[in-house]
């Protein structure tokens, strides 16, 4: 794959047999395995979205019947949440980068790391099986008693898939935490860690503490379904709200699994392309932990109109408001990082700046939802759909793509085509806003989510949304195309095309199997960039270029 005349030893050319990939415990190869699998799931999940956005072009149900529609949005949710978003940045970029960022040879438990990919894949097989064997129609939230006694679809196959995949999250989280604690290179103390490592550390905390609760809730659904034991269905003596408490106790923190690692990527990209040390390092680091911890105390804000007590609603509303503080701190610090920088707008930076804008909107609309009375109106409407897509797609997917572009040269040794990168980044940004912005308006107007048909007055906004979705879909296909193209035809990247700081850039691209020839010793703070130096160097380049032009001109005249 890499032909540069001399063939330096690296993790990609170490061995070409399929077995050497399937049984590799190299964190970089496991990351690539994850990259391939989550990309597959992303496009399957995306395809379901294309279908239901087409259906929603008209108020009537004329493309698919309601059962199919319900199965489509359910699969979209399950696949995107559990098989794309949750593993996306941690399992691909985190796996690839954390050991290199802290100067280690591999993760603390390389075999466990490979195992977690297998567990993820087995879970994925079950989920695909559920899809093929007729689908599931409960929504990704599996609310009882619909899921436990009423739905006649492949609920248990899908739930089993999620149950199994949960263990891969737990193992990945465990691996990252132990690695961060025990395998840092000499001199890499906690406050020299890249913020990407901090945010993945906070994510790991949630994965370890939250995922078991999800597993338990799904197990209880299974017990009720198979043994008719009354847990959630009041007809059998259960309590339907118990499920919601258990489910959101995991799934709210899980929402932060789906954004914190993205915040880590943004900190890396912004500093590099602004040539600035990050503003307020400690505040960004600790705000990640604050978000992770607060995330466990706000699950009841999904239940303001569920029949939970009014006073419980007040407590959950209050704590949810507090989440705004660490989130705001991050946004302001990233923005301040740009101040007095030496900024260039390559593709990863476009994604990062887009992330800040969209995350700000997602966060601010979160305030609407945390405000009790407003939530009563917009709960379970398109407002909520728009809000969490601003966080998860506008936030996490933008960050993921930004990260993939940023570290692509490191992972493959190749450069992606910059022009195409910028075009698709812009297309995704505009397509995204066109898709989801109208949904805020739809939501306040009262259009409930998960509606197969809708009153006619909502059509204009739905058509806008569907139009945006098609733009977004093309925007996602373009990078798939040119990144694959670049594997063979992309320009050789060199070891550090961005002149980025961070230990992962001190080794060759692609890195050797053992990451570093010599264990690095860290002597400086993270992000030791200097905008002034960058400017001085740029001036030198400009002058050199001008001199070159002059010489060229002179030689022309002489001729």
């Amino acid at each position, binding site marked *: 794959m890499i032909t540069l005349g001399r063939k330096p030893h690296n993790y990609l050319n170490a061995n070409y047999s399929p077995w050497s990939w399937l049984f590799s415990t190299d964190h970089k190869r496991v990351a690539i395995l994850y990259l391939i699998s989550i990309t597959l799931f992303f496009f399957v999940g995306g395809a379901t979205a294309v279908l239901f956005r087409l259906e929603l072009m008209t108020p009537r149900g004329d493309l698919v019947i*309601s059962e199919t529609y*319900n199965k489509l949005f359910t699969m979209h949710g399950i696949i995107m949440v559990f098989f794309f978003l949750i593993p996306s940045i941690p399992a691909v970029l985190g796996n690839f980068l954390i050991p290199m960022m802290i100067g280690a040879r591999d993760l603390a438990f390389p075999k466990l790391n490979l195992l977690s990919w297998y567990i993820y894949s087995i879970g994925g097989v079950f989920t695909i099986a559920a899809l093929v064997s007729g689908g599931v129609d409960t929504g990704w939230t599996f*609310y009882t*008693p*619909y899921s436990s006694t009423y*739905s006649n679809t492949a609920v248990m196959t899908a739930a089993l898939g999620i149950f199994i995949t949960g263990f891969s999250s737990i193992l990945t989280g465990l691996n990252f935490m132990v690695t961060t604690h025990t395998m840092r290179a000499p001199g890499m103390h906690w406050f020299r860690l890249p913020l990407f490592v901090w945010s993945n550390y906070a994510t790991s905390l949630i994965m370890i503490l939250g995922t078991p609760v999800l597993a338990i809730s799904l197990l209880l659904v299974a017990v009720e379904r198979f043994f008719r034991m009354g847990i959630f269905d*009041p*007809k059998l003596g259960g309590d339907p709200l118990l499920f919601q408490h258990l489910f959101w106790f995991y799934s709210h923190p899980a929402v932060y699994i789906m954004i914190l690692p993205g915040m880590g990527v943004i900190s890396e990209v912004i500093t590099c392309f602004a*040539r600035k040390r*990050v503003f*307020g*390092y400690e*505040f960004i680091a600790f705000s990640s932990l604050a978000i992770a911890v607060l995330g466990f105390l706000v699950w009841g804000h999904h239940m*303001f109109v*569920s029949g939970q007590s*009014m006073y419980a609603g007040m407590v959950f*509303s209050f704590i949810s*408001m507090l989440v*705004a*503080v660490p989130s*705001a*701190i991050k946004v*302001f610090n990233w923005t*301040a990082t*740009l101040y*007095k*920088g*030496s*900024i*260039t*707008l390559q593709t990863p930076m476009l994604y990062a*700046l887009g992330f*800040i*804008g969209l995350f*700000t909107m997602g966060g*601010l609309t979160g*305030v*609407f939802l945390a405000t*009790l*009375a*407003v*939530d*009563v109106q917009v*709960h*379970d*409407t398109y407002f909520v759909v728009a809000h969490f897509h601003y966080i998860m797609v506008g936030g996490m997917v933008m960050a993921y793509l930004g990260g993939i572009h940023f570290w692509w040269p490191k992972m493959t040794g190749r450069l992606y085509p910059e022009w195409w990168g910028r075009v698709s980044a812009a297309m995704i940004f505009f397509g995204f806003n066109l898709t989801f912005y109208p949904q805020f*308006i739809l939501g306040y*107007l*009262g259009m*409930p989510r*998960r*509606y197969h*048909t809708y*009153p*006619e*007055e909502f059509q*204009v*906004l739905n058509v806008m949304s569907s139009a945006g979705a098609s733009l977004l879909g093309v925007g996602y296909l373009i990078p798939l195309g040119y990144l694959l193209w670049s594997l063979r035809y992309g320009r050789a990247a060199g070891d550090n095309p961005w002149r980025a700081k961070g230990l992962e850039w001190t080794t060759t691209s692609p890195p050797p199997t053992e990451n570093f020839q010599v264990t690095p010793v860290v002597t400086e703070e993270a992000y030791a960039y200097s*905008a002034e130096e960058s400017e001085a160097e*740029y001036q030198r380049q400009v002058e050199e270029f001008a001199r070159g032009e002059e010489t060229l001109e002179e030689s022309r005249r002489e001729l």
Partner: protein
Amino acid sequence: MEHEFQLFPEQASSYAAKLDWLYYSLVGVAVFFTFLICVLILTFAIKYRRGSRASRGNPSNGNLKLEFTWALIPFVIMMISFGWGTRLFMEINRPPADAIDMYVVAKQWMWKCQNQNGKGEINELHVPVETPIRVTLISEDVIHSFFVPAFRVKQDVLPGRYTSIWFRPTKPGTYHLFCAEYCGTSHAAMRGKIVVMERHEYAAWLEREGTTPASVQGRLLFERFKCGDCHGGDTSDDGPMLSGLFHRTETMRDGERLEPDLGYVRQSILEPQARVVAGYQPVMPAFQLSEEQIFQLVAYLETLSAQPLKSNTLPEELSR
């Protein structure tokens, strides 16, 4: 229900305008901060683009005062939003004492509405304008949600447990009733209409359409199931007296004290052994009544109350 394109939902209840004030204030905050961030990003990206002449001396990597400022400002805004939202939330959670009662049973995929004065409706609920209406909700199967966007109110409808919602319509017209909680195959078809009528029209409508009042139907049930054999009169030892039931506190056999309400009556009919009043034997058999029948029985029991705490009848001018 207009079929034209709209950007803002109609305000059709006394509460709608109050919520809109809060909502549009939050929109203001959101727009302000989004613009602030976008303008800052664009300004910096242009002013500090590589090769620009802007000064880059003395770069700062942190500033404690700044950090506390931009932590404090969001915090203050959040607290205002919290307080304002909570005040309104308490308002919609506390129906006024003079609200008239309606009962709604939700099932896959329809709304069965029971007017206090007897008229049963499917997927439609007629209500008089400028009158506080309290709707008591229960589901026969899965969780549904009673959502009237024009009134800005929503409440999940649970199986096996009562919830309630109230509103005071201010504008005659027909408004959407949506099921907002995903409830299975035909969830999107579980839509209904709230018809708000002028008071005199409503009275005429009742006159025209009205059947036996719920309390009378309840009384028929009471007699049919011979409830009075054990619970009637003053002398029976078999079961507690039912007159004035909703105005006293009862002690259960296990020492629990409770004020009997709709939920307690429902449980006592469907599973009589669950919570038995102290001093009585658990001898009552279970009765398989439908949710509508329970509503009717309760309407009758309320007429037995010595002095009603809340009025369950229409204001005088409306009653027949």
